[in-house]
């Protein structure tokens, strides 16, 4: 399998029209914006892209649209997480046929199966395709559901195309335990920072980053990523702290804050879909004021 290097991965939101349907025109503009803003790859539809609120048909249509629109400019990582193993595997097969470059999945939604069934879940999704397969460890998104380093090492033994782990656990022990063994079990195995907080992960051995805030601060994230990739970790700290303050500002409101911030930067992608609620006018005004007070955002693009 050729080595897959995702680099700095941007995570586009899913724009919705006022009638709550996917706004494909805006999605096209947003994809162009991310590519122009120097994304090395795009991942969609992720949790930041409200994947869980899309129907099966919509997810397929979105992947087909994105592949056509990207037209080979950057690789597309298709996120196929589902509650049911077979449903996720079918999405993975569809994404491969549509032209995605890699597949990513979390632990199953809602269920808390025993470890051997979580292993089976990943084996079946990964084995449905020949593309590089990434596991996303995201306990905060999954009500605490997480994978262990031991389970991931077993998955390496079971799945030839298991290419890497996207970590949003931020857990130093987990990352160290995984990468120090996985690099022997599978040379080239990728540890990928699943959040905009990359410095510690990079110290441990992460070589790529999924950046949910890239729609707001692509220049700052590019600077952080370049410094981390080149092992300039002390120098990366200042950029990391700026990004951390942006992350804390948007964290409580989740996707609603992210979309409000995008609109404030001149890239209106509509409101989140129910059951998520848009920020109200007061919260939006506060957010906009606080965004405007972050000096580091002054060099970031406005508009499309």
């Amino acid at each position: 399998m050729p080595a897959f290097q995702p680099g700095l991965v941007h995570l586009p939101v899913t724009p919705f029209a006022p009638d709550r349907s996917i706004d494909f025109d805006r999605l096209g503009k947003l994809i162009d914006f991310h590519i122009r803003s120097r994304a090395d790859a795009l991942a969609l539809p992720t949790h930041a892209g409200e994947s869980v609120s899309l129907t099966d048909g919509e997810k397929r249509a979105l992947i087909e649209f994105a592949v056509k629109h990207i037209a080979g400019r950057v690789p597309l990582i298709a996120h196929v997480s589902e509650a049911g193993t077979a449903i996720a595997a079918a999405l993975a097969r569809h994404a491969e046929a549509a032209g995605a470059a890699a597949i990513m999945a979390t632990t199953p939604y809602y269920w808390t199966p025993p470890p051997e069934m979580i292993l089976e879940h990943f084996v079946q999704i990964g084995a449905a395709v020949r593309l590089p397969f990434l596991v996303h460890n995201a306990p905060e998104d999954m009500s605490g559901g997480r994978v262990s380093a031991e389970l991931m090492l077993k998955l390496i033994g079971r799945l030839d195309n298991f290419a890497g782990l996207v970590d949003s656990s931020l857990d130093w022990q987990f990352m160290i335990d995984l990468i120090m063994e996985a690099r022997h079990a599978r040379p080239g195995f990728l540890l990928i920072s699943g959040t905009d907080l990359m410095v510690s992960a990079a110290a441990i051995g992460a070589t790529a980053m999924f950046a949910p805030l890239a729609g707001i601060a692509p220049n700052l994230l590019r600077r952080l990523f370049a410094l981390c990739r080149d092992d300039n970790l002390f120098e990366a700290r200042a950029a990391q702290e700026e990004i951390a303050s942006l992350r804390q500002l948007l964290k409580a409101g989740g996707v609603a804050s992210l979309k409000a911030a995008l609109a404030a930067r001149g890239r209106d992608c509509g409101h989140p879909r129910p059951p998520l609620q848009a920020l109200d006018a007061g919260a939006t005004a506060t957010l906009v004021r606080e965004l405007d007070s972050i000096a580091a955002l002054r060099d970031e693009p406005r508009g499309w």
Partner: protein
Amino acid sequence: MTNKFRGVMQSPVTPLKNDFSLDLATFEKVLDFHVRTGATAISWPHHKGESLNLTIAERKRFAEAAVKTVAGRIPVTIHVSALAVEDTFALARHAQDIGADGILAITPYFWTPTREAIHDYFVRLCTSIELPVLSYNSPSYLAGVEITGDLMARLIERLPNFVGVKEASFNSEKFLEISRAALKLRPDFALVTGVEFLLPSVPLGGVGSYSAAGSICPNLCRDLFDACVAGEWPRARELQYKVSRLWALFRNQYPSSLKGGMVIMGRPVGPTRPPLPTASAERQAHIRAELEQLGILDTEPHGW
């Protein structure tokens, strides 16, 4: 004043005789060994020193022995955390009276105090003595009770002798939030982790570690710290992975495996008090095999 709590600081185990009584002569040998092999400070009794299995009278007696034996060669801090907060205050006062250089205190055990209660606790502790106080943040061991970045900032603003934290969340975001909040207000605030997490913490402002690993492998600890502060990341990664392998060995049945390992290194310190187990002969044989495989027996000092 530059903060003196930095570098590879050692928190010695507590040597016991076969009847589980304190072994003062061996304790003095442990302290001397740490000082001779490059410890930058001593801090006793951490949990690995079986703090909670010692009576308050025993803790006072050995605290005096530690200060007397180290005799000003390096700073000595006393860990004063106890189940009853009133014992903590007594131990803190005692530490000051015997000439210790500082104290270390965790958020209260057992109860799940509110953020305000944690604030009030540290205010009361820090204003009861003049010694420097290091706090100890361990949310994963203490049911989510934690010192957040905001709380750290309030304590620093209020308390001139609140000089550092043993940060044991081992999580990129929690560490970053504390470092962002603390270093802005007190640039020499000591952010300390365990030696097993120097690599991810030093790029974000970490200045050192507490551990007892120096009783097994003082050379490796020092090399790792030097590589981190020099920004030699590829070398630091290899050394950190090696420390992590050792940590995996010792965190099992902690701290009895550590005491078992010290037997192998020619520095026996006796059994571990119940309810913690004492390393069996089989366990010691396993530890010996692992230490041999890691090359520790060839690269680290044997005997006292």
